[in-house]
């Protein structure tokens, strides 16, 4: 089938959206942007294809296995989680091998054996814990292997290292060295096998299912067999210039975000996008055409990366920040949104005895305050207002945004799509579709 792909090469994450000829979005993929944009682009695309396969599975199963009925969602969730677990374990194996391979050189002289033993134990521990992470209701710390594996690795290595008398710093270093290699290895493209293994897991996980296993298997297999032809691809975002895309395949991220938001909510007139290192306020007309935009200047204060630093500083996952901030009793007043000094400010305040959640709430508010200024600069907020970008996933940020929008602009419909992080990519995919169909 023909597919149209938009890839948004963000400064922190790379997103892809895949749509078919009818402009139906079939799949979305995300990965962290890394030193290698080409890999990031491929991974995101591959992820989008994986998610497309899941969509196709859903279609096939709905049609061919009606008896799944109300269980369809759970089944698909289990299928996906099973697949993710397979992926994770594969990458973990790779990481382990890489780590062990990296235990060499002066720094480790004489201690290699000991360290490798610790590593074996660490990875064993991580692998054992992994399935828990992919239980249907398990909370997730992050979408990315780097973060998930990293925090588990650190927890285990701190304990194991202490027992064996190996410095934590050293183990950390082995990890740092290896993760980048693992990340930059082009992903394993043979996903069919993993899918089928995941299918087995899913079936096993739902023993009470009264379905014909072979029909299910065939439905899944057929979904895997569909050829996904890459008809046209449009790249946008920070990294677009570093990719070997020709000019026709590149659109400014402003236009993509405007159009993407319009595609999600056709009533959108104002778009706020908070990404990793920039914040944009965009005004669009009823057709999704950009009328005005403003973005932060050369200072990256108060952008998404800020939350990343905070999460690092607190040794938490990005996904956990929002929920913790929601527990705040009062909102601490934070003035500096310099990303780099965020950590210092945090420590300062913790030292003064302020509660973690209050400070966090304050940090979220300060990000939104900055965004409000940029919006104000771009011409204010008009109805409807769509919030996109990674930070839109953060409930604490959204909460502050709602308060401030109400205070400053009254009742405005605020759209936040669960897939808001894909807005730019969606705009890109739409442009890709138009490029072929000749619409504009």
């Amino acid at each position: 089938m023909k597919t149209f792909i938009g890839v948004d090469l963000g400064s922190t994450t790379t997103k892809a959206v895949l749509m078919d000829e009818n402009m139906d979005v079939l799949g979305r993929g995300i990965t962290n942007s890394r030193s290698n944009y080409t890999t990031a682009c491929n991974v995101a695309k591959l992820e989008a294809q994986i998610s497309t396969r899941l969509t196709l599975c859903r279609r096939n199963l709905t049609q061919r296995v009606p008896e799944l009925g109300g269980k369809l969602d759970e089944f698909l969730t289990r299928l996906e989680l099973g697949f993710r677990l397979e992926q994770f374990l594969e990458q973990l194996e790779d990481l382990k091998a890489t780590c062990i391979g990296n235990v060499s050189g002066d720094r480790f002289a004489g201690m290699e054996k000991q360290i490798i033993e610790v590593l074996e134990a660490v990875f064993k521990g991580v692998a054992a814990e992994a399935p828990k992470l992919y239980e249907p209701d398990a909370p997730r710390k992050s979408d990315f292997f780097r973060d998930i594996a990293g925090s588990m690795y650190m927890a285990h290595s701190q304990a194991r290292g202490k027992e064996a008398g190996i410095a934590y710093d050293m183990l950390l270093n082995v990890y740092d060295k290896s993760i980048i290699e693992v990340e930059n290895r082009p992903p394993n493209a043979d996903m069919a096998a993993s899918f089928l293994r995941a299918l087995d897991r899913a079936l096993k996980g739902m023993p009470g299912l009264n379905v014909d296993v072979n029909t299910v298997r065939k439905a899944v297999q057929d979904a895997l067999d569909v050829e996904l032809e890459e008809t046209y691809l449009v790249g946008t975002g920070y990294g677009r210039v570093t990719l070997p895309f020709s000019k026709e395949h590149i659109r400014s991220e402003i236009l993509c975000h405007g159009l993407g938001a319009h595609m999600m909510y056709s009533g959108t007139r104002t778009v706020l996008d908070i990404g990793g290192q920039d914040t944009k306020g965009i005004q669009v007309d009823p057709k999704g055409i950009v009328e005005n935009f403003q973005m932060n200047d050369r200072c990256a204060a108060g952008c998404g990366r800020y939350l990343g630093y905070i999460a690092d500083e607190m040794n938490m996952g990005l996904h956990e920040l929002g929920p913790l901030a929601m527990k705040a009793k009062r909102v601490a007043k934070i003035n500096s949104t310099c990303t780099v000094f965020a950590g210092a400010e945090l420590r300062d305040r913790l030292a003064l005895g302020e509660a973690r959640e209050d400070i966090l709430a304050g940090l979220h508010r300060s990000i939104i305050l900055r965004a409000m200024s940029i919006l104000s600069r771009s011409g204010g907020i008009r109805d409807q207002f769509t919030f996109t970008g990674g930070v839109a996933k953060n409930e604490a940020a959204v909460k502050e945004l709602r308060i401030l929008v109400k205070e400053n602009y009254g009742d405005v419909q605020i759209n936040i799509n669960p897939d808001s992080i894909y807005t730019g990519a969606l705009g890109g995919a739409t442009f890709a579709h138009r490029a072929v169909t000749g619409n504009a």
Partner: protein
Amino acid sequence: MTEITTPKGASPEVIKDDSMWKQKEMMAGHYDRITSAHENGLKVCNTFVPGNLNELIRCFGLVNNLPEVNAIQSGLRKKSGNFVLEAEKHGHSEDVCTYVKSDIGMMEKGNIAPNGKKFPDPDVLLLSYTGCFTFMKWFELLREQYDCETIMLHTPYEGDGKITKNMRDYMVKQLKDDVIPKLERISGVKFDIDLLRENLVKSAKAEEDLVWVLQSAKNKPSPIDAYFGGIYYIGPIFGAFRGTDDAIEYYKLLRAEVEARVKAGRGPVTPDGDMGKEKYRIVVEGPPNYTSFRDFWKMFYDEGAVVVASSYTKVGGVYDFGFRHDPTNPLESLADYCLGVYTNLNLPQRVDMLENYMNEYEADGLLINSIKSCNSFSAGQLLMLREIEKRTGKPGGFVESDLVDPRYFSPANIKNRLESYFQMIDQKRSGKTKGVAA
């Protein structure tokens, strides 16, 4: 503003126009005159571009040296970055105007003029304090350095958008009772008002042609770029040549060349030869960036964007609404000139002027290049942008850089914004005509 007329790396087939040669020659002569002034028994007067009293200074046989022009030269020749750092090393803040720091850094590094010779110490600092408070601090700093006579000419600000009698009287009185007697004493030359009148006649002549050239951008396609190109065109008149025969001749040549372009239906000359098809007509507010002048310009002409009017080309005097130097009221005319330079206008006046440009020059949008250094220009620009958008319905764009501090010119960032801006104008246009499937 000299050597930019010979763009480095320009394609060989680009033939320099006569006006370009003339200008190059004038600027070279200017720097030679400055650097050899003391050998030739001439005295040197440092003074500023906006509201400069060139006609008056010339009456006393003084050679004028314009520190801003020197800073621009340092910027174009990619030396200002180091000069700025040098000044910062000597305790100047990172936050302040880099023109000043470039100038001070240049002094620390030997004070070498573009012709390779040392700038002479000034004999007098004529602080014509017009449109910018920084000028005052700048010359206080220079006075500390040179410990020489400093004359203050305070130009009141057009706070209410008009020149009042009180302001004019104050200016004339300062000129009569303070500035002129001091200049007489320092130069040893008696003031001759007829000589001043003569100079003013010459100024007005050149001004006439300059205005014609700048207004030629109303043609479609515009034969000139009124910002990047405009900066070359204003060089002689805002620099040291107002009131000279050289200036008259330069503008005559220039006018003839532009007339020819209009007849031939040609667009502006760029460092890469004639510009391609005119796709966007833009009005620009704010000074340019000099450290990456060429790269910045290229971002425009590569996209087919031509600047049809700009406010920066009015910093040394707003002529296009009728003001000319007037020999019949010499001192009053000098006063009005100082009071009327662009940065001495209040914000509502500046907005009106840009709105007028947007309409008269049939522009597609207003682009602001906001300069970190220059509060005089920058403070309030975002409101100006809003107002213009509101009044004209045309989209505004906003980029940030600095005059001579290369650290603040981030090519990727600016290019991204410019591209988005042009694409936005495009999308808007095609949206109007075609309609877009949603």
